[in-house]
């Protein structure tokens, strides 16, 4: 079962290779909605493990990655395909919303 991968400033780019769509979950321990969204993202990671990689980036510990994508709000989900940001969801989202957005991007 695919799990959410913790990425950081040092290894973020290494996940950008390959054909899978990447969902990046920017979060922080103080962000309660981020915590509440996690079960939904785990479900997505498991259900779409063939085609999708789900990364999580703690913004407090990884300022370079957050700044690079101009993240100033939590939660923020980025949907990346072929190295390009295709779309984003800002604010709390339910699993259906995430799934719908993912299917539009794929």
């Amino acid at each position, binding site marked *: 079962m695919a799990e959410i991968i913790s990425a950081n400033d040092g290894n973020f780019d290494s996940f950008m290779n390959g054909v899978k769509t990447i969902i990046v979950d920017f979060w922080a321990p103080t962000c309660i909605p*981020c915590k509440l969204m996690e079960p939904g993202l785990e479900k997505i990671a498991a259900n779409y493990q063939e085609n999708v990689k789900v990364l999580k980036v703690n913004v407090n510990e990884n300022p370079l990655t957050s700044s690079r994508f101009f993240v100033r709000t939590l939660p923020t989900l980025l949907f990346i395909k072929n190295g390009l940001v295709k779309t984003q969801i800002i604010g709390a989202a339910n699993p259906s919303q995430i799934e719908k957005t993912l299917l539009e991007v794929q």
Partner: protein
Amino acid sequence: MGKSWDIIIIGGGPAGLAAAIYCGRSLRKTLVLEKQVFGGQIVNADIIENYPGFAEPIVPAELMDQMFKQSQRYGVVLENDEVSMVKSENNLWRVDVYKNFFTAKAIIYAAGSTHQFFNVKGEKELLGRGVSVCATCDAPFFLNRKVAVLGGGDTALVDALHLAKFASVVYVIHRRDQLRAEKILQDRVLKNDKIKLLWDREVVSFQGDQKLEAIELRNKKTAVVETITFAGAFLAIGTIPNTELIKNYVNLDDKGYVVTDISLSTKAKGLFVAGEVIKGNRRQVAISVGMGVQAALNCEEYLASLE
């Protein structure tokens, strides 16, 4: 045929969860549907100080988590899904969600409200890039930076007080010349050296390339337009009720709030409302909880009358 329930509660905030506890205790087969996160908007706040029964401040997310678990204890099913349609057909209520639908004998509609926006230039483009609706979530991004809070109610002042722990300076920008927040919050804000107030200003635009750089403001009394640099702008200008789904079954006022009375019933049989969708609500957790309970008890009376 979709799965059938006695009661479907739409909305998993304080009103919906309080209703769920009572519906569960009435041994009604109850489903709660929440489109975002259980607990509602209040989980974005870092503390609540005015919920009766707690001498010390409490963490809203923990309070809501307890209500969530309390409803589960009485057999209530809680699902994370967005309702796309509510329809009365054949003496039942049909509720459509993503890839599925359900039916119920009664509905308690507690879908709450969503953040109000100014709808001015730059706001949508810079949302999440300096323009924010969640101070608790986003304050750490603005460590030692200059930020603005737009609004003059409880949420605005609570946000300002929270942001003052991180930002170098916080401007509370309000379109009137007085605040409408709780007096205790006003007192704290006025005594906080890091918080400054700008009165009678309305937002003309949010400016910046890729991230917020400044807010253009117009003084309502002098008509002078000024542009002030800010790294962050936190919107706290109220909410709009999520009543679109039930507009054909209820009486709405001109702002979209449901007009009802203490029965919390509507013009449609078996449809009850609770919480921030109701006209005159004061956006307090304690009030929403009370309304949820009231709606559940009246809903139970309605279901009993059918038997």
